[in-house]
């Protein structure tokens, strides 16, 4: 499969009477986007705001982050199963608006969503302090249940990102990157001496509010399967996950998966990047056994030499991670696992809830329990009403001087387990 990803660099976002992209500036009329959000009768109102890198702005509670894209050639459209039909995506040409993101915010469940600071200590930890953020705070209709609200905000985010992406249709890309994978036989013939490597992507699938979707399907219901890594660049995998902020994978990170990016960079040079395998992280133990069995079997059937495995979240998914690692290694396939740590505030406790001797190559995204103090910022997009309740905060988080004492866990993307952040350990 071959995908050309055209990058359009967005250097500023401004509210305007007419929505358009001109010389790298995204001009947005909120009234262009509002009907797209309010077509769902579960959403009573939406307020748009803009947060720019370096500004004294805090966005909270953050639900999802999405990169606007549009498919201009090839099968299907972006976010298949949501804003497009379910054609197989990942080939042809897609345009991406780089340097910006759509951020959905609003209270869904009080303790779940995260924080993005555009300046100060917090900004160092979130990758989304570097993007121009078009924020949308959605208000639900009276009495809407949490899971209905989550679904409404999730889908509204994709509609808005796709609508903004449409503004790029017909524009010249500033840069074009080409990603191409081979068929099984073609790859073996083309790169006979290179190790065959795949990427095992574990998707959070715990239940309502902790879910991930593949072509519109709740990934809890899938058995592990194979994707071309270019499919996720068109939004084949999207986040419906509200927790936890530091180590969940927002849709933006699925679209810009750094493991996929790095494996493509080595494809044909030091390795043959065969495919992406997706699997889930269910709560039911028999599901965990079945999915890890299937994942290990796929690795064997694809005659892989090695895999990179990434986790999402922590707690019981640590068991899925270790099951995957142990069973894949038992098939004679080498693994590197990417995770993060809950090693206590002093970093001295055991990092994962599960372990095995087969997990002898581990990359960490950082210790989510590390404590940081975030400065008081001038403006809040969303509300601070829930800041003492977010996972990683406490009843003493909001201090009298307006600063916040928190664990890194509250910061969106801080210890991302696909390696999208900057923290690690050696």
């Amino acid at each position, binding site marked *: 499969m071959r995908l050309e990803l055209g990058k359009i660099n967005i250097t500023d976002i401004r509210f305007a009477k007419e929505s358009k992209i001109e010389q790298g500036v995204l001009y947005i009329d909120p009234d262009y986007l509002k009907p797209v959000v309010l077509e769902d009768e579960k959403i009573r109102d939406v307020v748009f705001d803009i947060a720019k890198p370096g500004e004294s702005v805090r966005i909270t509670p953050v639900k999802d982050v999405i990169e606007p894209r549009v498919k201009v050639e090839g099968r299907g459209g972006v976010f298949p199963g949501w804003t497009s039909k379910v054609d197989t995506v990942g080939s042809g040409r897609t345009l991406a608006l780089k340097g910006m993101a759509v951020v959905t915010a609003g209270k869904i*469940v*009080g*303790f*779940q969503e995260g924080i993005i600071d555009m300046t100060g200590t917090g900004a160092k930890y979130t990758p989304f302090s570097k993007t121009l953020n078009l924020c949308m705070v959605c208000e639900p209709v009276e009495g809407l249940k*949490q*899971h209905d609200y989550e679904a409404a905000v999730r889908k509204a985010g994709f509609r808005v990102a796709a609508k903004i992406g449409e503004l790029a249709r017909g524009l010249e890309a500033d840069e074009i990157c080409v990603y191409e994978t081979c068929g099984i036989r073609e790859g073996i013939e083309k790169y006979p001496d290179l190790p065959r490597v795949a990427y095992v992507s574990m998707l*959070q699938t*715990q*239940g*309502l*509010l*902790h879910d991930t979707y593949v072509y519109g399907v709740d990934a*809890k219901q899938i058995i592990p399967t194979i994707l071309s890594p270019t499919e996720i660049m068109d939004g084949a995998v999207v986040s419906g996950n509200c*927790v*936890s902020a530091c*180590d*969940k994978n927002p849709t933006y990170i699925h679209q810009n998966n750094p493991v996929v990016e790095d494996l493509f960079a080595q494809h044909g040079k030091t390795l043959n990047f065969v495919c992406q395998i997706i699997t889930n*992280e*269910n*709560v*039911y*133990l*028999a*599901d*965990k056994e079945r999915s890890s069995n299937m994942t290990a079997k796929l690795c064997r059937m694809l005659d892989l030499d090695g895999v990179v495995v990434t986790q999402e*979240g*922590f*707690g*019981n*998914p*640590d*068991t899925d991670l270790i099951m995957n690692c142990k069973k894949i290694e038992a098939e004679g396939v080498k693994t590197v696992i990417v995770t993060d740590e*809950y090693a*206590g*505030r002093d970093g001295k*406790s*055991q990092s994962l*809830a*599960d372990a095995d001797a087969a997990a002898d190559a581990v990359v960490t995204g950082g210790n989510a329990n590390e404590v940081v103090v975030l400065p008081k910022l001038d403006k809040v997009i969303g509300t601070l009403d829930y800041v003492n*309740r977010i*996972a990683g905060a*406490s*009843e003493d988080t909001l201090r009298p001087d307006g600063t916040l004492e928190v664990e890194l866990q509250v910061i969106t993307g801080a210890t991302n387990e696909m390696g999208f952040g900057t923290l690690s350990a050696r």
Partner: protein
Amino acid sequence: MRYFILTNNPLAAKEFGETHDVRFINCGLRDVLIKARDLINDGAVLLNHPLYGSVKPNETPFRSLLLQQGIPQTGNMPAPADPDSVRLIGNAVSAFEKFIVKKEITDPKLLEDFQVVDLSLLRSAVESADR
């Protein structure tokens, strides 16, 4: 499959009380884990993972577990303990003790949010068990 739900979540007891074997216990999260550990030592088998996904055990007061009753062996000997269940519940108790327990949550809205999340995870497990 015959199983029972061990829970301290009133919302879960309400949702499944009429259709499932629910054993409600009025206690904290740690005591749910300890009770489950006792049952596992007597041969019960865990069907869902005792840890949440992405919620630390010191942050929520509620937990619902699915357990399959152990079948006593001949001569009234208790069923042998399932090693996987023993390991998982042991790790869960350790994970709980790793974190500082926060002050008791009294805000009814927040309590409801925690009950809703526990219930959503429980529903997910029950759907798999009842397939």
